[in-house]
């Protein structure tokens, strides 16, 4: 029974992990930028929802779409004004600039929001209901639902809408897409904006389940990266499945080895996955 409960918790948490990775996978797949500031953007989204809730009194789940709009604009501006300037340079340089951005965002957050732990804590935060003898926490279940819904929305946009067609065409061949009337600067900015909006939603949900501090970015980036590789960059649903895999693995580690080892395990998992799937690693290099 304990095991079943742990598995359930892992799956619900994993859905959120998948949502975290969704934006990173999209930006990576289309723009060929591995965004090391992705975790910091998740953190920022978390703070936007936190302040909408505490200062604005808006229910956190209703604040999510607002936060997504705010983060979309931030992401659009970032790509338009800064990242578009270096997007053609070597992978080393795009890695470094997003690493620099991560530092800037982290310490700006520290100056603005202080280093205190923050939790988005609505009245129903602790409530849960029993199901087949298991306890289902409402917030986590809702977070899982939002993650799956957003993955479905992304799938719909990518596969059924003109914007999605333009994004996929650009990912396949930038020059050809340009010839067919796609403006790459705008399209890159829109894609990055969608990625940041997804990160913002993930941050809001993360703030309801765990603690927000300015320093959560780096570990969330690493986690998103692992999941993006496990799930692949092409299909949003596979990314969610990858998230569930990592969530379950972490929960089992915490149960059998102790919670201090979850970092070691997710790192170990990353190396194992990278080494076992060398084809993909070579292709993107």
């Amino acid at each position: 029974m304990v095991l079943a409960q742990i598995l359930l918790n892992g799956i619900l948490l994993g859905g959120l992990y998948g949502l975290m990775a969704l934006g990173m996978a999209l930006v990576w797949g289309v723009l060929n930028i591995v965004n090391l500031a992705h975790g910091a953007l998740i953190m920022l989204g978390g703070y936007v929802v936190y302040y909408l809730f505490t200062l604005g009194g808006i229910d956190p789940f209703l604040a999510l779409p607002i936060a997504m709009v705010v983060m979309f604009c931030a992401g659009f501006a970032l790509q338009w004004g800064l990242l578009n300037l270096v997007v053609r340079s070597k992978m080393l340089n795009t890695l470094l600039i997003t690493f620099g951005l991560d530092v800037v965002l982290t310490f700006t957050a520290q100056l603005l929001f202080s280093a205190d732990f923050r939790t988005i804590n609505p009245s129903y935060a602790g409530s849960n209901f029993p199901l087949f003898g298991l306890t289902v926490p409402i917030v986590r279940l809702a977070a899982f639902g939002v993650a799956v819904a957003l993955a479905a929305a992304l799938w719909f946009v990518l596969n059924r809408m003109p914007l999605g067609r333009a994004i996929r065409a650009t990912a396949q061949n930038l020059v050809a897409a340009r010839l067919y009337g796609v403006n790459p600067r705008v399209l890159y900015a829109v894609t990055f904006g969608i990625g940041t909006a997804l990160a913002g939603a993930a941050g809001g949900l993360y703030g309801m389940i765990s603690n927000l501090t300015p320093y959560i970015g780096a570990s969330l980036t690493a986690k998103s990266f692992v999941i993006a590789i496990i799930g692949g960059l092409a299909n949003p649903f596979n990314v969610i499945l990858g998230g569930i895999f990592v969530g379950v693995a972490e929960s089992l580690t915490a149960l059998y080895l102790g919670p201090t080892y979850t970092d070691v395990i997710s790192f170990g998992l990353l190396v194992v996955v990278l080494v076992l799937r060398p084809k993909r690693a070579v292709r993107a290099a």
Partner: protein
Amino acid sequence: MMKRWTLIVAVIVAVALAFVPLVGSDTMIQFGINALLLATLAQSWNILGGFGGYVSFGNSVFYGLGTYGTAIAMTNYNLPFGVGLVVGVILAMIGAALVGLPILRLRGPYFAIATLGLNGAMMAIFSNLPIAGSNIGLVLPLTRNDTMFYELALGLLAACTLTVLWISRSRYGMGLIAIREDEDAAGTMGVNATLYKVSALILASIFTAVAGGIHAYWSTFVDPASAFDSTLNVRMVIMCVFGGPGTVFGPVIGSFVLSTVYEVLAAQISTAAALLFGFVIVLAVVFMPRGLADVVKGGKGLSWRYFIRNIRENRL
């Protein structure tokens, strides 16, 4: 190829630096030790990162291993400092080989992100090791001799820079550069890429570990948070990239410039100093993707057009 006068200037600067403890104040010597150790870290990162093109965000692990190797040898077994350093270096070399063999098969961003997790994993392991004092850490015997530590750090930086100078002129360095430019082509030309990359990481781990050992003995205290300090990765990468990755003196100049700026700023406002570091790396990538060394090489012909050209080359 490097001009002769660059070498002469470098030697003169190094000799002049050696005499700083005779004239400088205590604060200045202590700042010097930190700056020299950081420059060593940036220079050793340069071996694989600058020449080989493999960006590692996990070299602080070798610093931590050097720190703990020295500390464990000196406190638990009462061995002298020199032996402690050797223990630290051996630990770091083993660590580099164990880490390098699997993850150096990965390329580009895969390698970089695989190294991101290293530091956290090592910190978790050392926090649970009784021989390393678990969470509490170890206290080393006290030696108040800042001049000795200063000269040690200077010697280490000189040794590291000489090694990089040798690399830049040797067949080995050419191999690393070939790997950076096109790993498949390098393989076709007979460069054993795995051997080159792993040995470059091991070479880097040696200098990084000695820097860690010196710092441990100097500060007389080691705990998981200070030994596996992830901001150290940030600093060494930024200093090297700011100065000019893949050059001999770029990382040293970059570290000295940034250490000084950081020291001046940190005296005023501490968070802003970290923030400035982030801005420096962002602006450096946009305006001078080949580093300070490339800007200086432009000499008198340098104008704002150089920076515009850099942007034009890389923008969408």
